[in-house]
């Protein structure tokens, strides 16, 4: 299975898609607030009143007509109703078009990168040297560590994007680059989704170095589909509990994979050194019996159940299983998890400190 479906790639794409869906759902929420100010009554109105003085100031300063469509505060005539619905539809279409363009661009960039990598570059290295495989697995493991930790912050994603997008809408510069304007609702989702998409490409690219080429397309596609579906459900039912559960399961699974990859990287480096010592590729020579591995530093070795075998491949992909455990691979696995624990403890402490200061 790991040769047709890469589990880490699935999770990464799933998570990025989920984030993109959240962005779009936040945008849709904002748009609905704009179109129907009475309905909802969420913090958007509070936020807009809070920033209105500043908005007026900006309008005076820049002299640009950049305010969002005026808020009708008067009576609900039927023509207003129709106008509002039209506006809503127009805004929604803009959002979807913008997001779709952003997504497709990101996909195109990602697919191009992976295609070039796997047809040209990887042939030179990956097949011939355990050393390169080890380096790629190491890079993938580190990237997964980062993704895993940041995945835990996804429940704040909605809040984060709300704030960011509101500020963008109210004319405030977002990161000094984007400015709200007539095309705000097209450009904004496009750029946001594109940025998220490129970030996803970088992560997927890094992790895919350690995966067989055939396993990526299916995993990516399934990840996108699942992300859209799950994201929609979360948006529709607005349940934070579901999201939290998802986050916990995904993060644990992806960190398991990451720890396994880290351990595998160490194993590959040791295997490379042993091959160099023997002067031949150990895999070619000995199978899984005595003589196929280095006895120095070995903790366990089974004459079977190699990760190259059928069912064991899945076990290896998810848990980092190997029939040959050395001091290096075992300590690597343990230290990876210890790093996770330490990092999370540190982050929580910092958050608590910040909260206490407020």
């Amino acid at each position, binding site marked *: 299975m790991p040769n047709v479906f890469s589990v880490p790639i699935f999770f990464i794409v799933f998570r990025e898609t989920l984030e993109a869906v959240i962005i779009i759902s936040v945008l849709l929420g904002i748009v609905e607030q704009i179109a129907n100010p009475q309905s909802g009554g969420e*913090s958007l109105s509070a936020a807009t009143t809070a920033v209105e003085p500043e908005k007026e100031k900006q309008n005076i300063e820049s002299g640009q007509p950049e305010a969002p469509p005026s808020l009708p505060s008067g009576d609900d005539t039927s023509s207003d109703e129709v106008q509002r619905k039209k506006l809503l539809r127009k805004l929604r279409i803009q959002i979807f078009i913008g997001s779709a363009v952003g997504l497709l661009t990101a996909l195109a960039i990602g697919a191009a990168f992976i295609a070039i990598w796997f047809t040209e570059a990887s042939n030179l290295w990956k097949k011939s040297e355990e050393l390169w495989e080890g380096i790629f697995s190491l890079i993938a493991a580190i990237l997964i560590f980062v993704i*895993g930790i940041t995945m*835990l912050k996804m*429940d*704040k994603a*909605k*809040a*984060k994007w*709300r*704030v960011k997008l509101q500020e963008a809408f109210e004319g405030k510069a977002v990161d000094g680059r984007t400015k709200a304007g007539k095309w705000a609702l097209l450009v904004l989702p496009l750029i946001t989704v594109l940025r998220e998409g490129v970030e996803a490409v970088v992560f997927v690219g890094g992790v895919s170095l350690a995966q067989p080429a055939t396993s990526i397309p299916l995993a990516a596609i399934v990840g996108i589909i699942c992300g859209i579906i799950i994201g929609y459900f979360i948006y529709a039912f607005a349940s*934070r*509990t579901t999201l*939290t559960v998802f*986050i*916990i399961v995904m*993060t*644990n699974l992806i*960190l*398991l994979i990451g*720890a396994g990859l880290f351990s595998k990287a160490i194993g590959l480096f040791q295997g490379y050194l042993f091959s160099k*010592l*023997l*002067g031949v590729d150990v895999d070619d*020579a*000995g199978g899984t*019996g*005595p*003589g*196929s591995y*280095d*006895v*120095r530093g070995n*903790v*366990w*070795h*089974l*004459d079977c159940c190699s990760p190259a075998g059928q069912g064991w491949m899945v076990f290896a992909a998810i848990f980092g299983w190997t029939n040959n*455990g050395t001091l290096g691979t*075992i300590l690597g*696995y*343990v230290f990876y*998890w*210890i790093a*996770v*624990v330490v990092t*999370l*403890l540190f*982050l*929580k402490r910092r958050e608590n400190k*910040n*909260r206490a200061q*407020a």
Partner: protein
Amino acid sequence: MKVAVHPFLLALFGALPVAAGVHEVWWNLSYAYNVSPDGLVPRRAIGVNGTWPPPPISVSANDTLIVHATNYLDNPSSLHHHGMYANKTAWYDGAVSITQCGIPYGQTATYVVDIPGSGQWGTYWVHAHSYGQYTDGLRAPFIIHPLQELQTYDDEYVVVLGDWYHQEHDPLLKHFMSIANPGGAEPVPDAPLMYFAHGDAYLPPIASATPNVSPSTNSVGFNENATLPFESGKTYRLRIVNTGAFAAMFFWIDGHEMRVIEVDGTDVEPYVVEQLNIAVAQRYSVLVTARNDTSSNWAIHGNMDTVMFDTVPASLNPNATSTITYSSSNSLKNLSPVPLEFYQPTDETVFVPSVVQPQLPPADQVVDLEVTFDTMNDGTNHAMFNMKTYNFPKVPTVFTQVEYANQNITELAFGELAFTLDHLSVVDIVVKNGDVGKHPFHIHGHKFQIINRGVDYTSNDTTLNPPLKEGQANPIRRDTIQLLPLHSATLRFVADNPGSWLFHCHIDWHFSSGLAAVFVEATPLLADASVPQFFKDQCATLDLPSQGNAAGNQDPNNLKGLPEGPFPQILGWRPKGIGAMFGCVLTATLGMATVTWYAVSGRKLTDEQLEEEVRRQRATKKSWKSVVASKLKSA
């Protein structure tokens, strides 16, 4: 040795006056420099009196051979007269760690080879039996002429076959027995050797040979520079001996028929063969009649059996080709190359000994030995008999025998692969080759009868794995037998020679990696034996004990410290593996629990509180940025 002697021979020996002589040689075992028999890479080799190859020894069957060997080599040395019985005098057998400690630098050991007492004659050889020195060149033919040969011929030559390495033995062994060679690939020889001797001198190179670099090998012709001068109408005996360390040889002569008349010192009825597959340490004699047509010279082939080589480098020429010269002006007829099917193993059971000895009675003792090779728990590759690898004892085995001859001593006190034999019992060794390589097995102190051979010892099919037949009329006898992969053989002899006798694969690399066993024979009869004092003094010089059992203990049944190992690997889930796996699972569980805790504890905030927090963080970030920007502007 119990032999049913042909009445004619008995009369012959009884009638002639036995002029018992002594043939005495003085050999300084020393290095020869710039040795290059193949003309490729000069190297240091081990020779005698500074020259290589060591001189052939040629004696009469009623001579006693006395060899004074003085050692000038880096390591302790010894000389083993291969195939000689050393009746009741195992200390003259020359097997370091079994029959002596080794000759220290500058000292001399005197070997007394009692040929008349043993009743042996034929083609034998002498070589070092310590520290791989025979691989480095310390080897020479040793021919014993009976008063009257059974066959008639006009002249005889010795054909010395062998393999040759460009590097010395010690670095090759170091790599062979290292963790970098878990598969046990033997060092591949760099060249084959074929050279000839006549009497006690080697034949010189042909006239057209380019002068050899080395003064010591200059006077001997090797391979294409060697030739046998034949005259038409004459019949020649060729005594062929494989003195190599590893490679078996295929031997034949273009345009001439070979009739085998001797196998390892056993005369046999003439038998025509097309070619001979001669494993390391084996000997054959053939009769070759010169052609009437003398218009061509003919090629003699000595080709190495490369099947055993781990790799066959492109630069290696495994075939030695010498010539038979009828006339120096002739052109050479060389009928090679030959098809692969031409190379066949030699089945020695077709040869019929001229001196009839019926199959010995059914065995009193059967020793089963199964051969395997594997990577051991220290990462090196070792050979095993019955899953045990041989280790040299701390005290030479025969010294232990003599010391405790009157006491009750257990078999294990002689070492793990030691087998005690009772005096005059009939012994069967059943060897089963469970390895993928071909192995020549040699026994010291005896010749064995080959009474059974099988092609696949694991099979139930009786054509592949025949049962033992008793009462065969005249089975072939020899001292070195080659076993192909999965083959088995039953070797029978009588334990009539009190002493300690090695049984081992004669491929030097395999002997070093433990493919050996020792037969500790008729110990009680050694009670009145006296080991020459100088052997024990030499042990002392080398700081080695000469008293005690194989573990070096004075109490013969105290086995503490018995040399053993390395051992076959035990794979699978062992305690430390299980513990490590448990540790991994534990840390992963802790990690996942931390993740869950972190995610859950973040839920306590409402959406509004989260947004406030995000705004605050962004405000902080912005203020930091403006501070940095203003600092940069002012800088």
